[in-house]
């Protein structure tokens, strides 16, 4: 696909269609004309429909609605109450899964926080205390040292110490316990599914669309059926977390295995490996560095989801944030939020250090072998870190029996920054209220509300027509059918208006994120120092669980569309920056040199060479930004938007699975339409520029 002619674009051999995607002189007037027509419809559609007495034009008639919501709810009910696999019922099945997950979860929870007990209720007697806070810090410090160096050890130790000193220890440990359980399950499950997809192309074909869907369906939408199946509590939260965090591991596994050099695979065949040996002795170890990237992702996504899943009973730091948001207790919310950030940074740095850790050098290997020879003589010498950690755990455990401070961090020594934050926010709100309010009103009056009114005014049949047309123009009749069908699905479920509000919030946020992000990306690509600062900020933004973004926004701007928009912009900024920077950095140096030799000024260079060539990458970044914006939008339902996210949230509070799933699928439908159209246009842009796929 390196030919310059757009006729050779990968989309297909139909030259007539591909021709449309060129920058032809007819293109711009066509879109402009469509926009004008749409605007007229939007402004006068209501009057018009009233005049000809065709109200159905503006509001999808309830008589035409599909009864999907009810059907799904009934089906879920049937599953839980009546379904049976012959030997056991569906309910027993879910209980079995719950038991399987609960067992290790209880164990870990006992280990890090509750302590081990026998008996239940008032008869419960503690047989062993949980690991002391000192022991847990010792563990993470040791892991940090083994993974990389003392600096990392100090960083993660400091992070955990922070949790203790600032009184977040207990909630943090609950969250940690959830992460510790969901990560191994997510990694192992993802690995096995990924291996399956690698081995059997048919399995891959079935799995791929499911993974695509799982990544576009908003997280809240999983929560509803899971809540229905497993009930409120940590197990439901863990199940949701695992489901949410597994897909990237599946993808990474398949990719990493495919990335193993052919020669390594051939070597395996030539020494006569069986299939089992080939997979576990040759392919998986060779792909290990790639797999560790997946593990890092699973950890970060698990943390993100564990926080969100506090809504269905995960407890921990997420619950602290949620309840303080509900109470509008700014100080406590912010404190818990910072604790989440601290924990996210610690976990991210640790797992990244493991991911990039080089294989040991021969000196270490020799030392290890020699230590092996010492056998019994030197248990400590062979496993210096493990033995130290065990010793610390035992000593603090024993001391803890006499001196409680060694067991759990003394409450009298905890600091709290809550009042400080509350005061600060109050100070800001008192002194800068007018400025904030002015900015908010300005944005609302001149940007948010007009866009909202415009989109809501569009008659739904015309909306579907436009989506179909765009699909046809960028990707041919297949994409047209897909886009039109999905749009019709939204309308047919009576969610058109809510979808339009989602679209409006998403559109405005993406616009602003792009306006900030793309220039930042360009700047980062052009200037090394800017790059360092921007990368650091973006990296941190990306590690934060999506929940955290809500806290400062609500404090400063209270609830509403504007707050939601700011949170979405912050969350979705990263890909816009990254892809723009990447696109510009990846331009062939010769092309830029050609520009310089032709006497381009810096501005001309940027505008005439770099930006056009980086366009495909920028479009891909836009695509990612939209996906992130949509996933965040659903979470912002917590701060009072009235879009599809709210629909899911309501379904969640009412445990109405039909409603939640349909709303979730509608968000996914929007995501899929936008994703496919943008991906198709990025592909066309690439083909037009003659870039390789």
């Amino acid at each position, binding site marked *: 696909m390196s030919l310059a002619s757009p006729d050779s674009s990968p989309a297909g051999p139909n030259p007539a269609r591909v021709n449309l995607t060129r920058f032809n002189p007819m293109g711009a007037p066509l879109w402009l004309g469509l926009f004008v027509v749409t605007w007229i419809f939007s402004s006068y559609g209501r009057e018009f429909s009233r005049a000809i007495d065709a109200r159905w034009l503006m509001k999808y008639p309830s008589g035409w609605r599909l009864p999907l919501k009810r059907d799904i709810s009934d089906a879920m009910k049937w599953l839980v109450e009546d379904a049976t696999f012959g030997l056991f019922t569906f309910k027993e099945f879910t209980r079995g899964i719950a038991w399987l997950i609960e067992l290790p979860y209880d164990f870990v929870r006992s280990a890090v926080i509750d302590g081990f007990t026998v008996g239940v209720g008032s008869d419960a007697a503690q047989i062993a205390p949980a690991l002391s806070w000192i022991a847990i810090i010792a563990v993470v410090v040791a892991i940090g040292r083994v993974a990389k160096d003392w600096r990392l050890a100090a960083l993660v130790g400091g992070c955990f110490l922070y949790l203790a000193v600032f009184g977040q220890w207990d909630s943090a440990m609950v969250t940690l316990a959830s992460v510790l359980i969901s990560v191994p399950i997510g990694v192992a499950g993802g690995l096995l599914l990924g291996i399956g997809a690698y081995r059997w192309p048919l399995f891959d074909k079935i799995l791929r669309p499911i993974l695509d869907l799982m990544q576009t369906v908003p997280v809240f939408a999983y929560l509803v059926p899971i809540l229905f199946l497993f009930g409120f509590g940590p197990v439901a939260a863990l199940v949701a977390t695992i489901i949410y965090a597994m897909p990237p591991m599946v993808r990474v596994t398949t990719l990493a295995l495919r990335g193993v*050099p052919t020669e390594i695979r*051939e070597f395996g065949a030539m020494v*006569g490996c069986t299939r089992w040996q080939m997979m576990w002795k040759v392919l998986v170890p060779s792909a290990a560095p790639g797999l560790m990237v997946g593990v890092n992702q699973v950890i970060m996504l698990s943390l993100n989801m564990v926080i969100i899943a506090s809504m269905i009973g995960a407890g921990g730091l997420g619950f602290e944030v949620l309840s303080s948001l509900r109470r509008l207790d700014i100080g406590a919310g912010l404190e818990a939020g910072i604790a989440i950030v601290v924990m996210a940074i610690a976990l991210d740095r640790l797992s990244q250090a493991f991911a990039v850790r080089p*294989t040991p050098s021969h000196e270490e290997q020799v030392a290890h072998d020699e230590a092996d020879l010492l056998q019994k003589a030197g248990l400590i010498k062979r496993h210096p870190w493990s033995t130290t950690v065990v010793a610390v755990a035992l000593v603090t455990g024993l001391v803890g029996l006499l001196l409680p401070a060694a067991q759990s961090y003394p409450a009298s020594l905890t600091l709290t920054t809550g009042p400080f934050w509350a005061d600060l926010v109050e100070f800001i709100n008192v002194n800068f209220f007018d400025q904030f309010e002015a900015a908010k009103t300005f944005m609302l009056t001149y940007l948010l509300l007009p866009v909202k009114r415009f989109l809501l005014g569009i008659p739904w049949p015309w909306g579907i027509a436009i989506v179909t047309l765009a699909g046809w123009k960028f990707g041919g009749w297949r994409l047209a059918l897909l886009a039109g069908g999905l749009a019709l699905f939204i309308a047919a479920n009576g969610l058109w208006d809510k979808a339009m509000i989602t679209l409006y919030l998403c559109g405005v946020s993406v616009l602003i994120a792009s306006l900030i992000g793309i220039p930042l990306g360009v700047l980062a690509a052009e200037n090394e120092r800017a790059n360092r600062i921007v990368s650091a900020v973006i990296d941190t933004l990306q590690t934060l669980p999506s929940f955290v973004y809500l806290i400062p926004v609500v404090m400063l701007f209270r609830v509403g569309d504007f707050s939601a928009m700011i949170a979405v912009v912050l969350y979705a900024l990263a890909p816009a920056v990254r892809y723009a920077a990447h696109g510009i950095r990846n331009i062939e140096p010769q092309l830029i040199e050609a520009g310089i030799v032709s006497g381009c000024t810096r501005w001309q260079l940027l505008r005439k060479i770099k930006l056009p060539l980086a366009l495909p990458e920028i479009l891909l970044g836009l695509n990612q930004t939209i996906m992130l914006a949509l996933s965040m939008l659903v979470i912002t339902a917590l701060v009072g938007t009235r879009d599809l996210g709210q629909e899911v949230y309501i379904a969640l509070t009412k445990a109405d699975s039909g409603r939640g799933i349909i709303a979730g699928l509608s968000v996914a439908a929007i995501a899929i339409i936008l994703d496919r159209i943008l991906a198709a246009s990025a592909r066309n842009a690439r083909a037009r520029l003659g870039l390789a796929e």
Partner: protein
Amino acid sequence: MEKPVKLACRSVWKLYGPNAADFPDVKNVMTQKSHSERHLELTGEQIRAAGLIGAVRAANVEIREGEIFVIMGLSGSGKSTLVRCLSRLIEPTAGEVLFEGRDLLSMPERELIEVRRRKMGMVFQQFALLPHLTVLQNVAFPLEVQGAAKAEREARAREVIELVGLKGRESYFPRELSGGQQQRVGIARSLAVEPDLWFLDEPFSALDPLIRREMQDEFLRLQSMLHKTIVFITHDFDEAIRLADRIAIMQDGEIIQTATPEELVLNPATDYVAEFTRHIPRAKILTARSVMTPSVMTPSMMAGGPAPEIHAGDVQADDRIEAIAERIEAADSPFRVLEEGEVIGSIDRQAVIDVLVGRDPVRRDPVRRDPVGREGAG
């Protein structure tokens, strides 16, 4: 006496493209004709017209025990595909591959694994070392796969590591070694199971020219000790000439000539082959036998009289010109060429100079050549 055939392939085809296996012409070609007639019934145009790529076309190869058989071709000529068909890393579209008389292609997986474990070894262009294992563990890996005990396989691995000159580096990891050292590990690993048949797929192509030379010497040294049957792939004609007992030259998926280096130089089958041989220093390849003037039995000799010419000395028929050139050039009269004690011809200064300056070797017929030789000598 010719050694038995170790590995043979008959009319092996590998076509790439949609539905390559159902391409009817291949089947027809395969079923209707006998082996000799099958050769290239299917032209490149026909294959291309069907939307396929003919990576290997009608390849016939016989590799004898103990020989170094080099498959030479430029990139895209199908040499790597052919060697992968021979080792069944790729399933050929059609044809048969016989290893020690057994059909490799119809072999069930279990048996194939057994053959590969015990009888085959392979060295790869990019070394294909496992990054997470030390040198020792890498070399011991084939034995580990077979289920050998740790002590046993490590003892054997240490032996081969010493053989390739890497003693002392057992606990290094591949990334700590230079390219040449990594390939020594690759060679050691492939030798650990004492294979009968040794595939080397461009083993030295990823190395610097100086190291490559060193590794070629090392390879010849090993072969002089081990006497394996070797299939060696290269794109470098110099390397092929240097190492090969016989060479198969490939172009566009086809084997266009299989011959000893000397035959290739003397009788290139096509212009393409001739193009390769043109810049080869012939003195290193040609033997006295191929440039000598064969003896003509004169009536006086038949009568038991002395040979008509005075000679300055004797050379053996298999001596390379390079080795004897200096002696012959220094002498005024021709040398006798001996084979097993019998005089089979003579070689003079002019003939040697022709070889050295790269003049087209004229096949000298004794009648015309005699007076010329005398002129040269006079």
